């Protein structure tokens, strides 16, 4: 049996649309100070560090070279992840479970406000020969996906809009909810057009934030550490990147990632066995598509169940009680770590007004955004 691994400390800055008063270094440092304080560790006691960073988002080549100072990782083992924060959690899990290290730190941040040409940066993820020459804005990929998802699942525009209504309302009760608002389905549907059928109000706006998570082996929990939240399962997967041939209706990458995590965690029926879900909602329909891919709703049911209120904080399957990305902002590759941190707060009973009652098991799922088919999943237990 591999060693059990726990999250023993989390630190975050409050997500906001702009953070002009701090550099990314100071932003990360602030999150790290909080995380190490919760975990009851000094950085010199930590075994290994996993910054999750993407050069094009930073405007710095080999940007992970700039991670060490603010994490207290100078001359320590650093293993950079070019992926979502949950990929970082999975890697930290492996490095501890295998016995290589006793403690690990995962860091991810977003300075999205510093990227002045985000859609051009996104375009760099498109195939340079076949796809890049065609497009005005690569976010049309979301429109393509939404069309086919609605076509096959039967989800309606109103049901997609309900996701926005719910998540932005939840964010009103969350101190981390920069985009909390009371909006109606009518407001969402009568908003500006973006990438039809996707409307402008159905897209998560960008936020700046930093997140740091400390993990430790069960047999080496620091005496002063916060009450442990256990990693019960991790899984990650990518579909084919090819726009010409990928699965447009179903998020197969999420299905594969979740199956792995469920097998490891011994989850047979996620809707019954898991109490709260923080899952990717970069766009309204993504929450519905991911709900079905993660096996939380049957195919064709996610929209109906959302419209009936079953994914509300007090519903049968609370989804994005935090407000998700629609309510707190999209934080580039830190988004998955944001969701993980929100799950940790739920399991510790520290989620305040957005607390899900009796949350014992939680799931965080991150997607790396347009045009990727890259997803990562973690199942956490109190």
């Amino acid at each position, binding site marked *: 049996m591999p060693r059990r691994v726990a999250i023993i400390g989390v630190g975050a800055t409050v997500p906001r649309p702009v953070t002009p008063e701090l*550099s990314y270094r100071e932003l990360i440092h602030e999150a790290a100070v909080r995380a190490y304080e919760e975990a009851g560790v000094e950085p010199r006691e930590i075994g290994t560090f996993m910054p999750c960073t993407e050069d094009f988002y930073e405007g710095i080549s080999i940007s992970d070279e700039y991670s060490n*100072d603010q994490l207290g990782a100078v001359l320590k083992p650093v293993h950079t992840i070019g992926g979502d924060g949950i990929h970082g959690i999975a890697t930290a899990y492996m490095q501890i479970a295998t016995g290589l290290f006793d403690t690990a730190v995962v860091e991810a941040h977003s300075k999205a406000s*510093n990227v*002045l040409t985000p859609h051009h940066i996104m375009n760099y993820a498109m195939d340079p020969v076949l796809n890049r020459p065609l497009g005005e804005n690569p976010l049309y990929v979301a429109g393509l996906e939404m069309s086919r998802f609605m076509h096959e699942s039967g989800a309606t525009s109103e049901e997609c809009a309900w996701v926005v209504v719910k998540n932005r309302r939840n964010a009103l009760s969350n101190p981390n909810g920069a985009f909390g608002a009371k909006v109606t389905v009518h407001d969402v549907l009568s908003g500006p057009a973006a990438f039809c059928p996707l409307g402008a109000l159905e897209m998560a706006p960008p936020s700046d934030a930093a997140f740091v998570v400390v993990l430790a082996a069960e047999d080496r929990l620091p005496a002063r550490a916060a009450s442990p939240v256990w990693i019960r399962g991790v899984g990650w997967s990518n579909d084919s990147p090819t726009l010409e041939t990928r699965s447009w209706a179903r998020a197969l990458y999420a299905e594969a990632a979740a199956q792995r995590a469920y097998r490891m965690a011994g989850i047979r029926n996620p809707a019954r066995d898991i109490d709260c879900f923080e899952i990717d909602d970069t766009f309204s329909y993504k929450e519905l598509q991911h709900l079905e891919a993660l096996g939380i709703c049957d195919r064709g049911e996610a929209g109906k169940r959302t419209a009936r209120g079953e994914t509300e904080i007090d519903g049968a399957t609370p989804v994005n009680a935090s407000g998700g990305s629609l309510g707190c902002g999209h934080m580039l590759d830190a988004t998955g770590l944001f969701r993980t941190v929100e799950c940790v707060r739920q399991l510790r009973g520290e989620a305040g007004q957005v607390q899900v009652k009796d949350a014992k098991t939680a799931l965080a799922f991150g997607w790396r955004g347009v045009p990727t088919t890259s997803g990562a999943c973690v199942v956490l237990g109190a």
Partner: protein
Amino acid sequence: MAKRVRSMQDFDFRGTALSADEFSKGKVITTTGEPHAEYAWDCGPAISRYLEELRNGRLIARWCKRCNRTMLPPRMFCELCWCPTTEWRFVRDTGIVNTFSLCNITWDMKPLKTPQIPAVIEIDGASAGMGIMHLIGGCDPRKVRIGMKVKAVWKPAAEREGAITDILHFTPA
């Protein structure tokens, strides 16, 4: 035992080199793209003040109480003891050359008539091993030495803009 040295006879060079002509006539199929990546980096309190003081024609550092280090460039936390730094401290605009290079080739491999002289300057008043990455100028490249005393040559005050280039270069003191 003598180390075996590889000679050209060890390699069997097959294939034909491509000529520029073959690219321009489209015999080799490539596609091109122009990047459009723009950023505006938030500098934060430490580097913002550093740049502001460069505009004022002086260098400012941060002091770590626990390590007793005067840190240049300034930072809000010490990367070694990981405590917040506590004080601003002005340092001199003179120092000694820690290391240098003569850069003889441009980024696209064209030879330079006069080499550029990048150097790390340990600044007087900052802790040992700390200072500025800059250029040496107004000096025969053959005369530059590690340990040489240098001083900053500033742009005229009216032309300074709060940038590392507000210092033109360092020159022998």
